[in-house]
């Protein structure tokens, strides 16, 4: 097909989309895709009209199969809203395919009802199909990028939440590590611990790994590096909360924490820290509370 023929088909199709706007909107607004906003038909019709305009712009520009076309870019915000209303992402692909079918079928039916020259029917149908399929790709992209944004922000929140540095005593800090440690989280934990050591001039820092489900070579490496960095700054690191099965795994993996002091429980590590500072906890004399 030549470029001028393509252009001709585009203009016929866009003219069709413009002229049959009303029936298309009427058909589309009944589809479950636009009914997401609580079955409000008026709102659905407005949304439909906007999507249709975007589709038509892409067809006019000859970019019906380009998801990055201006026409599709213009309706991304609307599609984001519609995608957010659906909520459940578990059947994303199946649902999107169904939505696209519910838009394409009425459109093609209306197209075939047109009184057209034979040469235009098939290419026009192909063009309409391509445009709606591209709309489907844009929909998927919108839904997936929304998911990506959510994951990124939750990861950030997790990193912030999970690394509180606690002051146990003058010069004694503890950082309870919780959950699986990936490289980013361990880096954040190390940095905040070292910064707290500097700010509070803490001589002992306790890394408590009670909440860490498994210790592999990477986590052990991270613990070791944190302890070494703290030592270079002039503080001492104590690792506590190593559960028996974790100790067992570590030995089997051949992990050696070398010169780092380890204690079974946080309480033991705290006692050790106090003794490093020359302090001790003694029971108060009877009656002297």
């Amino acid at each position, binding site marked *: 097909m030549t470029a001028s023929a393509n252009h001709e088909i585009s203009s016929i199709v866009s003219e069709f989309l413009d002229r049959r706007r009303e029936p298309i909107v009427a058909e589309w607004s009944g589809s479950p895709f636009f009914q997401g906003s609580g079955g409000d038909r008026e709102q659905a019709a407005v949304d439909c009209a906007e999507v249709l305009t975007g589709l038509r712009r892409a067809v006019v520009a000859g970019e019906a199969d380009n998801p990055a076309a201006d026409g599709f870019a213009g309706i991304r915000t609307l599609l984001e809203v519609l995608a957010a209303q659906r909520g459940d992402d578990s059947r994303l692909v199946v649902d999107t395919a169904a939505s696209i079918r519910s838009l394409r079928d009425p459109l093609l039916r209306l197209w075939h009802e047109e009184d057209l020259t034979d040469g235009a029917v098939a290419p026009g149908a192909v063009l309409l199909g391509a445009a709606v399929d591209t709309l489907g790709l844009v929909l998927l992209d919108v839904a997936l990028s929304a998911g990506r944004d959510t994951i990124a922000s939750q990861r950030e929140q997790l990193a912030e939440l999970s690394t509180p540095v606690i002051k146990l005593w003058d010069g004694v800090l503890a950082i309870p590590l919780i959950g699986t440690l990936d490289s980013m989280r361990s880096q954040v934990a190390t*940095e905040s611990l070292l910064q707290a050591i500097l700010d509070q001039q803490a001589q002992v820092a306790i890394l408590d790994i009670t909440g860490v489900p498994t210790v592999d070579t990477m986590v052990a490496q991270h613990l070791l590096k944190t302890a070494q*960095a703290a030592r270079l700054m002039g503080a001492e690191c104590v690792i506590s909360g190593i559960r028996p099965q974790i100790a067992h795994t570590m030995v089997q993996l051949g992990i050696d924490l070398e010169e780092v002091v380890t204690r079974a429980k946080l309480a033991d590590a705290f006692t050790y820290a106090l003794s490093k500072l020359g302090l001790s906890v003694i029971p108060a004399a009877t009656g002297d509370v």
Partner: protein
Amino acid sequence: MVQVPIINIHGVLLISIQDELLDDSISELQQHISEQVIEQQARGVLIDISVLDVVDSFLARTLHDIAATTSLLAAQTVVVGMRPAVAITLVELGLILPGLRTALSVEDGLALLGRGNGTVRTGPR
């Protein structure tokens, strides 16, 4: 060439590195410290690097060498005030400087060297 001042406080030589030093200056400082340890009969050396944002591998190794040298001359070396970012970088570079004594502040460093009640002691502790 930057001249780093060496201050003697009750037998402890206090060296505060204020600027990033070129390799030549570092080598010269190393030489200077060992001379001063003998001349002033120092029992300890405190090197304060708390203002340094960057400690390269050469300076790190030299600090380690200074510690080894002064301990042969019966003086303990303590490096004080290393910043968190510097510590992380050195560990990532694999320069964990075993045997180098460290402290958080000059005060802690002096305590580590056993200045205690201020009596002047010379020679090994």
